[in-house]
């Protein structure tokens, strides 16, 4: 058990390091560039329409405070960290005076829900089909699926989402193409609301699943075709162990071990996909929030979403890493 403890401590250390480096990166980006972020934000925020001069001045003051631009670089750095640790990103510029944290809190469940469900479906489906394709290499259906996976895998997120939008939005309009739920429904736990949420989630989830499934499929297929040549699989075959048992407990089980690590590694990428997907389908998650915040020049919101996504993805990675030893008993001795 001691080995597991060391493992956990190590992963926690890695988690802290990821968050630390990520947030420092955010600091460097916002503070070390020669451009004055305050003026940038104000010009972006005020470029549409007329804003009263004293409102601009008020914005300027609160932005300066928000950036922590006063004082020495060390003080600025400390102020920056203090705000991050308190999750205090100030009021949103675009939805003044709602605090940034409230906006993020509202959007986060949408993204988390969409991402979790579609990631799990993608991972399970991709590995299952890829595993079968690696084991039954002669099956025509699975070979065809391999070709489809190869074709889908390299398509950029945006293009695929756009294609789905065209197909299900214009050519065959059966699914809602925008929003997280029907506008007229109150957000309470009624069946109408839940089914509306699910209906609205189908297209964005489908785009994420289609785009992601290829790499799991191909990865698992090649892993399985390696695992079947391992001694323990050959031995089980020579031992007349039930074919089904060999496939599940010997082949798939062992091939899945690196795929779990792979899932942790790919979480950051999955999040990238979610941002564009949310934008295309008008999904009210933090991806949309981020994009709109950039358009509106809302510094606090952009920084808040960036920080939250770094922390969120790191927590996801940590969670997967902590589950990993359940799958691979050898972790304890390493």
């Amino acid at each position, binding site marked *: 058990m001691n080995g597991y403890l060391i493992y956990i401590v190590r992963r926690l250390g*890695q988690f802290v*390091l*990821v968050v630390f*480096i*990520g947030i420092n*990166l*955010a600091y460097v*980006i*916002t503070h070390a*560039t020669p*451009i004055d*972020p305050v003026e*940038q934000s104000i010009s*972006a925020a005020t470029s549409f329409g007329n804003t009263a001069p004293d409102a601009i001045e008020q914005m300027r003051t609160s932005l300066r405070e928000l950036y922590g631009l006063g004082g020495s670089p060390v003080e600025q750095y400390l102020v920056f960290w203090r705000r991050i640790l308190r999750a205090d990103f100030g009021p949103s510029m675009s939805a003044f005076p709602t605090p940034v944290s409230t906006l993020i809190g509202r959007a986060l469940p949408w993204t988390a829900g969409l991402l979790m469900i579609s990631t799990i479906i993608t991972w399970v489906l991709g590995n299952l089909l890829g595993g079968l394709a690696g084991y039954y290499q002669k099956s025509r259906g699975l070979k065809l699926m391999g070709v489809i996976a*190869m*074709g889908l*895998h*390299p*398509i*950029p*997120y*945006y*293009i695929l989402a*756009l294609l789905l939008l*065209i197909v299900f939005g*214009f050519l065959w309009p059966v699914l809602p193409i925008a929003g997280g739920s029907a506008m007229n429904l109150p957000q309470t736990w009624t069946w109408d609301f839940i089914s509306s949420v699910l209906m609205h989630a189908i297209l964005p989830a489908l785009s994420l699943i289609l785009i992601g499934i290829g790499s799991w499929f191909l990865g698992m297929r090649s892993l399985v075709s390696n695992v079947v040549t391992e001694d323990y699989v050959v031995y089980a075959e020579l031992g007349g162990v039930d074919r089904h048992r060999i496939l599940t407990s010997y082949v798939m089980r062992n091939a899945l071990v690196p795929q779990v690590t792979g899932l*942790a*590694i790919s*979480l*950051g990428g999955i*999040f*990238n996909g979610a*941002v*564009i997907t949310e*934008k295309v389908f008008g999904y009210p998650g933090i991806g949309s929030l*981020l*994009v709109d915040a*950039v*358009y509106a*020049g809302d*510094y606090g919101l*952009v*920084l808040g*979403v*960036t920080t939250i*996504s*770094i922390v969120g*993805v*790191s927590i996801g*990675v940590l969670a997967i890493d902590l589950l990993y030893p359940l799958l691979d008993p050898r972790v304890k001795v390493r």
Partner: protein
Amino acid sequence: MLRILRDLLRYNPEFRIGIVLVGFVLILSVLASFSPYPPDQVYVVPPDVPPSPTYWFGTTSRGQDVFWQLTFAIRNTLLFGGTVALISRVLALVIGLVSGYKGGWIDRVLMSINDTFIVMPLLPILVLFYFVMRDSMSWLILALIMACLGWAYDARLIRSVAMSLKTREFTQSSVFSGMSTREILVQEHLPYVMPIVFSTTMNNMVWSIGLEVTLSVLGFTDINTPTIGGMIYWANQHTAMVAGIWWWIAFPTAIVVMTFIGLFLLAVSMNEYIDPRSRLSRMGGAS
């Protein structure tokens, strides 16, 4: 090198298709030099003309010829991907080889940083960059930033190979033949790592071009330099899809998908070629 190319062409259908696709895209990008219109000028041709013998891929609502615009776009996009791949390969190679061969605390420090970059969600960070830089964001700067963020996974790959190479007996034979560390890394280990570098180059280009398209579509790049993503951005700005100007979006999309599938197939066939088992059977080792 030429023999590898010949072998792959002759025996690997995936490589053949990949070469054809990538070759087509490359030819298209070369054609940019012969364009009758400068890429940054608008309303040089009648707007919204569907594909025809005069305008093969039609024209845009901004009065640009889609075909010639596309040649510029794909050239810039490929240049972008190539730049990112080149710089990040150098980083991955140096960090991977040194980390793997040296081991110890150097390895531990480098790999901790490395693992951090692997799981970092890059899009928000790139968006933050754009947010701060705004109009000063050129594609070269974006390429530099992405190269600095995109080496980690491949460095780990190279490191694992370097580590196993280090423990192989021929490394010690080389040491005791009087070779220096630099000579061993360059002459003995690099040949094993090069195929990985080639195949990850393809994957890295797919990755960086994909991100660039994403950012451009959102308008978070220098939209005045024509790229594939930039074209789609302008098409969206003019609601081309709703207006029925499908060719404005369809052709850039088709070209980028071709590029991706081509690069991906090249990477796949390369991987198969460098697979140690297949390599051994080609060389005809002991049975």
